[in-house]
């Protein structure tokens, strides 16, 4: 896994991040939807270090769902597969 952590807390050991865990690592669009906000707002939270996110070597950013607040619609972005 080659990812650069934009911001992380004790949960985010860069060596242990598994972006294949699609329930935990969300794209910016998914994060915006599950938090009922906009992509612009999600980017702002990342810049401010309010939520955990990593950027891959390919330049894609993923948000750690565990650092988002409790969601009003938890089933919307849940996958059946891991």
């Amino acid at each position, binding site marked *: 896994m080659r990812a650069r952590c934009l911001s992380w807390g004790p949960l985010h050991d860069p060596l242990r991040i598994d972006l294949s865990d699609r329930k935990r690592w969300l794209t910016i669009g998914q994060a915006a939807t599950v938090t009922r906000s906009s992509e612009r707002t999600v980017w702002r939270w990342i810049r401010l270090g309010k939520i955990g996110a990593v950027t891959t070597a390919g330049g894609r950013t993923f948000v750690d769902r565990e650092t988002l607040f*409790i969601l009003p619609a938890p089933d919307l*972005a849940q996958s059946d597969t891991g």
Partner: protein
Amino acid sequence: MTGAALLNLNYGVHDQQEVALNIDEQIFAILPAPSRAKLERLISERELAAAAMHAASDKLQDAIRAYVLLENQVRQQLVSFQGVEILPPQEVFRPSAVRQAKIDTETRLMAPVRAAERRKKAAEEAHKRAVARWREYDFVGECIAWLQGIASLGAPSFKHFTPPLPKVKDAVAEVQRIQRELESLDAAWRAAENAPLPPKTVRERAIAEIDRIAQAGALELNPYNRSGEPLDLERAITQRQTAVRVPGADHPDLILTGKGPGPLVVWLLRDQLVEKINALSDTLPVEGALDDDEREREFARIAEERLRLERLEEAFIVAMEAEGRFVPRRRKADPRAILEIAEV
């Protein structure tokens, strides 16, 4: 069921803690005035529903208690000595007459118990209806949880926004149609989320992965080397344990240094690996495949359409409320639609 068991029934699906909303007053500050007023009204309506539910719960408890006490009392009467039944002389020697007299007595004594049972059942139904009515305000709790979450991360600026309401013949049917569309959007969302990558993309990424490792394992001949080992192969393929002491730690940690032989093997077998990858990628599923950009575009499309529909649904519900018709909101309704807000 025994009286004691009945009295111990837990009808408290709505204890005080669950009913009370824990509201941080600061969250109101992030809302525009009309949205704030609407949320305050909805909270107030929810509290009224909660009060009605508590009243129904109290009535139910009273009805259960009255029923159980009365039933116990009558059953004791029935099993105790009933006294002497005086029958007309012509019926004294007819056993059926005696039996009938006993049944009549039981029916007479049990009549108030049956009435209490009917009152208990009516109270149960009323309680169920009150709980259901209160549950219809679950979305208020969700809105508040969302506002608190947004506020904790740094809320964006919101403006008040309501969509223009199209003219329709039947608003209820329109809301139902919107809800069906929302369900199909949820299905589309899950499909996009679980869609595989196109085989071409998987192949390109796999080959890039091989090339990156192969590059790390590539051997170089050093024409200026004077040690007699122009490849420096041993250093390239050997891993060693090195002791590293982290400042402040009691003991040094052993860490592995060196790449090991893996990258060299990948460099040697690069073309064979690529050939294998090409063969493997031909077996990957292609149906519904989306690359990352397509997936993000699909997410954005669904999210936008979903919010548009939810705003419309809320606008119809509000319009019907103005006409005195109550249509319950979905618990999972988007708080932005209910609160009539849009990010600035």
